[in-house]
């Protein structure tokens, strides 16, 4: 056993190595990106294949191919990534895996680094019937990853390891086994369309098989030790919790000097219903402590009906559904239901100006955003996208009129243009996002004939999430040379007539091109190509 301080994401790597993972794919996002970044650093010596895929769907599809070929795989993404790959995820639940697969999905309660929604990805368990594990800290990130591979191997089903920012970006002491050296594994796709092809009528048989698997996994969940009860079992008041919330409730119990029984669920889906039923017996009140959506609470209320209908279930009515939990919120809730005294700390009243994210010094986007804002005609609609360019929504720019999800700025601008051809629309997007999904919106815009102006802010890297490689760079995550895709060439072959590639430091050229392209009847594209300032400084240092 080794004992080290590890970040939750790095503990996931240790767990995957210990399980003998062969194939790692993913798309960088916060708070999951270190999984791919740090895996790449140790991939060679551990004989593991690692890639940044072009998006979460291609990442999952790659892992499906690897699984069908007998390789153990780990897929990593942030919360919204599971939306992108869900099209491949649902049939994967039906076919099942051949070699085991763990899919890490990192949620971000309180939206510390997320623009589009405060997503609770646990809900995918209900849509897909895929088991979901919910670790609280780095030690559990390590153990649950290993267990995820075990469950996947035992039941031939992918397993979702759902983390949150406070687990993924928590550092703590982790006890772990250093993985043994393994050979580089060459897989083999052994043909078996009976398992791998979801064509009807077989597809409904597959659904039946899936539901049977879930029954078996439910029975397994009753016995597995990551669902456990601690504290004074005789108390009439009990707590049911999972994930990072379990740490906060333990802290709050300590703070208030309370000793209550706590049922901690390591497996979110399928739930150990018998274990929960037994826990409910003899209790008068249950506090459900979970972040965001009251999924566990609803399940517990359902179970209560047959076991102990008089029991009072508390959760969403005394805890917030928006934002992450913390020990203080739980102290208040516990005080309320137990009658214990708790004095909330009063913050000193002083209003301070907020310091929001800003473009770095020397960032090429400093040349693009103010220039275009200055010369665009009154009433021009500006569409923003995900990545560093989203800082354009914040002061001092305050530019974006809409902002959604990866690659959406161009897709939405097409709809705005179609609604009113006279309205001027400029959409912004980074290079990484263009390759992720922005290209799809561009093709739709060309095909269905509208004419927004698209600005690709090509800073030669996927910057916001910590500098990951993308197809425009000619490098893979492993630093190997690969085909360098040219955004302008792609656009040209997609039928975009008006294309200009320029260095945005030449603001006059940028101004002139924007003015010219805004008058065009077809969609236009300006690729503003200049390397990320942080990357440039780093490269100079080396």
């Amino acid at each position: 056993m080794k004992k080290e301080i590890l970040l939750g994401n790095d503990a996931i790597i240790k767990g995957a190595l210990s399980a003998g993972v062969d194939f790692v794919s993913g798309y960088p996002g916060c708070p999951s990106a270190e999984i791919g970044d740090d895996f790449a650093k140790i991939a060679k010596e551990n004989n593991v294949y690692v890639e940044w895929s072009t998006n979460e769907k291609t990442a999952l599809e790659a892992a499906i191919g690897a699984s069908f070929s007998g390789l153990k795989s780990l897929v990593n993404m942030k919360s919204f990534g599971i939306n992108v790959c869900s099209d491949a995820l649902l049939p994967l639940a039906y076919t099942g895996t051949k070699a085991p697969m763990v899919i890490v999905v990192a949620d971000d309660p309180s939206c510390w680094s997320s623009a589009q929604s405060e997503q609770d990805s646990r809900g995918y368990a209900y849509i897909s019937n895929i088991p979901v594990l919910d670790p609280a800290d780095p030690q559990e990130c390590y153990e649950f990853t290993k267990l995820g591979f075990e469950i996947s191997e035992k039941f031939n089903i992918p397993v979702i390891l759902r983390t949150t920012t406070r687990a993924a970006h928590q550092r703590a002491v982790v006890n772990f086994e250093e993985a043994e050296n393994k050979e580089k594994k060459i897989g083999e796709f052994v043909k078996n369309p009976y398992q791998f092809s979801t064509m009807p009528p077989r597809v409904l048989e597959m659904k039946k098989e899936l539901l049977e698997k879930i029954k078996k996994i439910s029975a397994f969940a009753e016995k597995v030790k990551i669902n456990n009860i601690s504290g004074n079992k005789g108390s009439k008041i009990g707590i049911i919790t999972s994930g990072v919330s379990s740490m906060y409730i333990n802290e709050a119990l300590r703070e208030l000097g309370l000793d209550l029984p706590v049922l901690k669920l390591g497996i979110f889906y399928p739930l150990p219903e018998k274990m929960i039923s037994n826990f409910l017996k003899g209790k008068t009140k249950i506090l459900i402590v979970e972040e965001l959506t009251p999924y566990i609470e609803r399940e517990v209320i359902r179970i209560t009906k047959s076991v102990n209908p008089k029991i009072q279930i508390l959760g969403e009515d005394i805890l917030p559904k928006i934002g992450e939990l913390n020990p203080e919120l739980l102290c208040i809730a516990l005080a309320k239901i137990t009658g214990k005294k708790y004095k909330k700390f009063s913050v000193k009243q002083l209003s301070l100006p907020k310091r929001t994210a800003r473009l770095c010094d020397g960032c090429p986007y400093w040349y693009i955003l103010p220039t275009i804002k200055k010369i665009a005609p009154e009433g021009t609609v500006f569409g923003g996208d995900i990545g560093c360019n989203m800082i354009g929504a914040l002061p001092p720019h305050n530019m974006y009129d809409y902002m959604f999800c990866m690659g959406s700025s161009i897709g939405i601008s097409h709809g705005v243009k179609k609604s009113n051809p006279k309205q001027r629309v400029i959409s912004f997007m980074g290079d990484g996002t263009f390759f992720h999904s922005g290209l799809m919106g561009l093709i739709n815009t060309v095909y269905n004939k509208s004419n927004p102006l698209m600005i690709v802010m090509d800073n030669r890297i996927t910057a916001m999430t910590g500098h990951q490689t993308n197809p425009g760079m000619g490098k893979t995550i492993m630093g190997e040379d690969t085909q360098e895709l040219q955004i302008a060439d792609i656009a040209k072959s997609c039928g975009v007539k008006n294309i200009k590639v320029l260095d945005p430091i030449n603001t006059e050229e940028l101004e002139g091109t924007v003015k010219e392209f805004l008058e065009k009847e077809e969609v236009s594209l300006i690729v503003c190509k200049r390397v990320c300032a942080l990357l440039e400084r780093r490269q100079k240092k080396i």
Partner: protein
Amino acid sequence: MLYWKGDKKKYKTKNIMDKTFNLIINGVGGQGVITLLSLICESALIEGYDVRSSELHGLSQRGGSVETHIKFGKKVYSPLISNGESDLIISLEMLEALRSAIRSGNTTKILINDFVSVFQGGLGKEEIKKHLSELKNEQYIVSASDVCKEKLQNEVVSTTYLLGYAINKNLIPIKKESVLSAIEKTIPEKYRELNIKAFNLAYASN
């Protein structure tokens, strides 16, 4: 193994562990908050403490406010520090110091880098200093950035400089030797010497 004793009166039941040492490190994205955090976590582990920290990456790191938490002691449950529960705040920037200070009790000590990262609509240094001076907390305002720029030609190691200062003034229950071993372990070789210099510069200067 050393345990942080803290204020034991606060906890009344018998199975309560000793109090944890609660440290907030904050600043502006890009200042090296996370490097300092991982250095202190490692030092605490070397001392034999249980330790947990929480940090933020991504959007908030791009020049925004960054507040990270470290707790260490006999047993740590949650990595988050509740309002009023911090023992020490180390701030790499003055406005950020003030931001965390107003959510702290009067006994929290505050170690502040004498540096303001200006932004549109932000407060001036004099105004921040005035607000800070109205607080009852024990405060140390140290010219870490200036000294490191002048003596080491590198501003980023002001984080390690502040740590040297904190250890020297006994603001953290960690020994100098533990920090030096942690530097060996966590800082890449080419920056190691520079960090040791920054640490010693502060450690020896007061």
